[in-house]
């Protein structure tokens, strides 16, 4: 072999390993999706904490490479760095850690002060099961339908947790869909809230919530965990960690642990979760007909969840005395996109009455939605796993 042939052969081999050689049009579509997510996050400020890691993860996961060369770089290649990081998603241990952080961040006072708001969080879970029925109609198997329907819970970690158990093959699409719609909550929810409420209802002023004692705040996570987990033991990973995080926050003697759980730990897991979920959307796995169906079902689930929350408040108001009526604008907050959907309730309330602050009231159903979606996930897991 001459020297020039040797050079040519090695350069040829190198060329075959490059992304340019292995690229397909699907890769470019996914790269465009990743860039779109990053643009949404940076320019439009849509959930940057989620969409930047996911968007960049999509870029990382869709760099074309020769999958037969054994480079151990792909997220689905066992032993690769990305595959090791992805274990938290595939084995389902990132979501409970996120729930620990959510628990340590969340003040449940609004819910404790007005426990009946918990029922709004339960009603909004109808989005999940409405989507489940439609998914079955479209031909998905019950376990796949359950995994897709959980998008309606508007809870990314729960969606990842459940899909990793029920339909691991659809997890990438489900996770991206859930996070995308969570980012688009400010766009999706207000028209629904306007559609189902009258001007008079939007002006309902709710009484300020009573002050909640420290003891009640401590009892809440303990009783909450025991009750919900006794009803749905399959929800233990999510509910257990959520309430544990909240106890760390409220007990007053584990401030350092609560700070770590709500700051450093949550940040680390969010980075890893977002990036690996993004990277799991490899074009070959992601660009399928099913993905389009999942996105459509996810959108519908969000609409049903938001609508059922608002409509449930209207129904609930029929049984409440005039002085205790609930503003139906907080019904949308029954989906567990914390605190975006509560902020939307507040903003819309202020739009119609600049002195009507609904944020604290909306936080009640909002955190009840977190509990509700975790319970719903536990139910689906119990029935279908």
């Amino acid at each position, binding site marked *: 072999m001459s020297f020039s042939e040797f050079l040519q052969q090695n350069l040829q081999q190198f060329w075959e390993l490059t992304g340019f050689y292995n690229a397909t049009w699907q890769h470019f579509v996914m790269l465009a999706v990743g860039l779109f997510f990053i643009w949404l996050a940076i320019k439009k400020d849509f959930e940057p904490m989620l969409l930047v890691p996911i968007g960049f993860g999509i870029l990382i996961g869709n760099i074309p490479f020769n999958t037969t060369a054994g480079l151990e770089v792909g997220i689905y290649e066992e032993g690769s760095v990305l595959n090791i990081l992805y274990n938290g998603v595939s084995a389902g241990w990132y979501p409970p850690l996120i729930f620990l952080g959510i628990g340590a961040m969340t003040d449940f006072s609004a819910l404790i002060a007005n426990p009946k708001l918990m029922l709004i969080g339960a009603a909004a879970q109808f989005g999940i099961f409405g989507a489940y029925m439609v998914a079955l109609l479209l031909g998905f198997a019950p376990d796949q339908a359950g995994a897709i329907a959980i998008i309606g819970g508007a809870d990314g970690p729960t969606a990842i947790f459940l899909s990793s158990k029920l339909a691991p093959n659809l997890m990438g699409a489900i996770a991206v869909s859930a996070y995308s719609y969570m980012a688009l909550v400010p766009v999706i929810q207000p028209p629904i809230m306007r559609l189902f409420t009258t001007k008079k209802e939007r002006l309902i002023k709710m009484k300020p919530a009573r002050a909640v004692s420290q003891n009640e705040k401590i009892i809440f996570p303990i009783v909450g965990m025991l009750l919900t987990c006794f009803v749905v033991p399959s929800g233990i990973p999510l509910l257990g960690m959520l309430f544990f995080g909240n106890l760390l926050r409220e007990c007053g003697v584990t401030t350092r642990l609560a700070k770590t759980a709500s700051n450093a730990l949550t940040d680390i897991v969010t980075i890893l979760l977002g990036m690996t979920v993004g990277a799991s959307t490899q074009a070959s796995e992601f660009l399928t007909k099913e993905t389009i169906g999942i996105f459509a079902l996810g959108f519908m689930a969000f609409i049903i969840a938001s609508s059922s929350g608002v409509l449930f408040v209207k129904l609930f108001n029929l049984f409440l005395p005039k002085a205790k009526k609930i503003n139906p604008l907080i019904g949308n907050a029954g989906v567990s996109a914390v605190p975006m959907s509560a902020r939307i309730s507040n903003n819309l309330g202020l739009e119609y009455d600049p002195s009507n602050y609904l944020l604290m009231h909306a936080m009640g159903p909002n955190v009840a939605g977190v509990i*509700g979606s975790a319970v719903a996930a536990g139910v689906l897991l119990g029935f279908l796993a």
Partner: protein
Amino acid sequence: MKKQLLTLIVALVACATVASAQGRRGLRINEVMVTNDSSVVDDYGRHVAWIELFNSTFAPLEISSVYLTNDKNQPKLYPVPLGDVNTEIPPRQHVVFWADGEPNKGTFHTSFVLTPGQDNWIGIYDANGTTLIDEVLIPANLAPNTTYARTIDGEGIWEVRDGGDKYITPSSNNVIVDTNSKVDMFAQQDKDGFAMTIMAMCIVFTALLVLCLCFLAISRIGARVLRSNKIKSAGMTPRELTREEHPEHDSGEEIAAITMALHEHLNAHDAENTILTINKVKRAYSPWSSKIYSLRELPHR
């Protein structure tokens, strides 16, 4: 002293819990062949009796130092040897012991044999040699090359398997599952998802309703306790406390109106003779010179 005692009790309870969790209670005798003429062979190529054990838990189970026996009076007849990595049974998996009476042939060869034509009792004892984990009585009439096996791995009743419709499955599941029965059931019985929706929504509502009722009760009890404490500490009657808690004019609006009226009446305006000038100062912003990025937050004491 009390604190130390409490700590000791907590530690003891924790140790007991851990010890119990580490126990081998999930180990099960799963399938047994007493007379093996033409069935599976051991690692020496011989047809010998075998006992299949099953890890019914969802965690790996280390069985070294567990005792296998066929004599109730000698529970420590064959201790599973230490130091063999193969004695850790993966979750929901099996291991086969050859009952050939030749323990020198390896870890999985027992020191006892099973006797055809008579009842064979087999038991597994924990490392203490007294705690019986599982036992089975193999009937004397078990035909050659048939097994006595559980209908479902790790549970269920025992049945005779002849290798026809009922498979003989050493080191494998007694029930071969190729689909998820729960999913199949929902696919058949609940095609439109209506039943799932009703059941699941009922469960979600029940869980949150119970929580809601519980906290309504807790808040009422809390308020009552708080009130009685207040009555005791302030030395007031309940009526006096009620009057103090709800004065006749306690609404925010009324208090604000009174304050405004007083303000107007006393003409309590601030001195406003100073001239205020607002100049717009334009300064180019750069993150390199921004205090936000250059100053570090001091640690809290």
